[in-house]
């Protein structure tokens, strides 16, 4: 079995950004793979750009890291010159500038989300090619294929913060269940006028889906837990 350990680090990934009544919730899985090997099972794909703007990264780990590093640097300077926090729109457009002008070399899809005093909570999707699309919610990464139908049905306008975060956690968890390139833990970042909250949902604390079983310490526990003949065929 060829693990292809020389393959570029790629975040198969599931990334999500959702607006709610008062801010945004960003979510992502935590798997980074090199070919078939999971290089990092607890990556943090939600990266800070400024105090009030974060970005979800998917695709090539290297490309997405270097793009977000540059944009963080540009935004830092911009904030100093402007004298106030950068807006989400400016952050998104800086990412777009890099993504579009280097479209032949970059392989990264990004979701920018944040809160500013002018527009409130906003989500911008920046897929391959460098298109910018402002959306009430955005999904990306290989795992997102399994979520289009889910969001078509489950998304509603003006959710509360709790509803929005639950939706994001459920969605990432569903994608992890079916996408081999997504896995690990679910990380969320909530951004609103009050600030930023990071949350962590380990894989074994997520809801179980179809044909998934309750994790056990050992078969021995099952055998010893009484009940008739668990080893019987």
């Amino acid at each position: 079995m060829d693990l292809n350990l020389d393959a570029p680090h790629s975040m198969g990934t599931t990334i999500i950004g959702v607006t709610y009544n008062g801010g945004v919730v960003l979510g992502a899985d935590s798997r980074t793979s090199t070919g078939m090997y999971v290089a990092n099972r607890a990556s943090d794909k939600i990266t800070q750009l400024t105090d009030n703007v974060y970005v979800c990264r998917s695709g090539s780990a290297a490309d997405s890291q270097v793009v977000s590093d540059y944009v963080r640097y540009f935004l830092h300077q911009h904030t100093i010159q402007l004298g106030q926090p950068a807006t989400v729109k400016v952050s998104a457009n800086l990412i777009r500038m890099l993504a579009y002008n280097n479209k032949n070399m970059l392989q990264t899809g990004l979701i920018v989300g944040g809160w500013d005093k002018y527009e409130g909570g906003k989500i911008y999707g920046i897929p391959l090619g460098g298109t910018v699309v402002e959306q009430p919610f955005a999904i990306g990464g290989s795992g997102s294929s399994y979520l289009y139908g889910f969001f078509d049905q489950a998304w509603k306008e003006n959710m509360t913060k709790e509803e929005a975060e639950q939706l994001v956690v459920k969605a990432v968890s569903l994608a992890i269940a079916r996408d081999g390139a997504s896995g690990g833990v679910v990380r969320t970042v909530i951004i609103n006028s009050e600030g930023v909250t990071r949350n962590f949902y380990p894989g074994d604390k997520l809801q179980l889906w179809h044909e998934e079983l309750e994790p056990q310490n050992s078969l021995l526990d099952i055998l010893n837990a009484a009940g008739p003949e668990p080893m019987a065929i």
Partner: protein
Amino acid sequence: MTFTIPIDNGDALKNAETDSQRTLYPYVTGTSIVAIKYKDGVLMASDMGGSYGSTLRYKNIERVKAIGKHSLLGASGEISDFQEILRYLDELVLNDNMWDDGNSLGPKEVHNYLTRVMYNRRNKFNPLWNTLVLGGVKNGQSYLGMVSMIGVSFEDNHVATGFGNHLARPILRDEWHADLSFEDGVKLLEKCMRVLLYRDRSAINKLQIAKITEEGVTVSQPYSLKTFWEFQAFHNPTAGAQGSW
């Protein structure tokens, strides 16, 4: 098409304008635009879809935009390139306004500018992956033209891009005539858009129709068309030949 000659043009980040790209393939694409001249000006229709390969990924993309006071630009093809073209035109219109000389760019001028941009990019093997439709009215004269990604440019009374070339143009050739009323024009465009909805896999049922007249530009709210499925033959297509389609 494979263009694999690497060129080092300095820091791609700082020299955004001189960066040499070779666009090999589009990522997020818009499908057909259909447009016609009518009595008071030009009508242009497009759906609001942005496809990502075979996935209908974005369903709220506006592919028709007003340019200056006298023009309407519709685009099919790569959306990021369309967004870049809008930036170029923003600059063009800004400079035009800064002259403050009472004159303003008409559709003919905008069409010419776009033709030069598209053709020159084609010559550098770095096309903007779009087919553009430019319509407008200035001083009572209606104008409707098209530019493709290889720089082919022309004017006509009715134009269509993408699938529209094959499905809409025959309808327009048959049914277009000079001095269409607004209602007849809209009905004609909707006839074309409905066919595209039936037969173009990348079409979605959410469209906008834009109108430009001497008075200015209006873009309709997004809306959906009813479709017809009640043919007898549709109800039981394999009745006479089990296993067929």
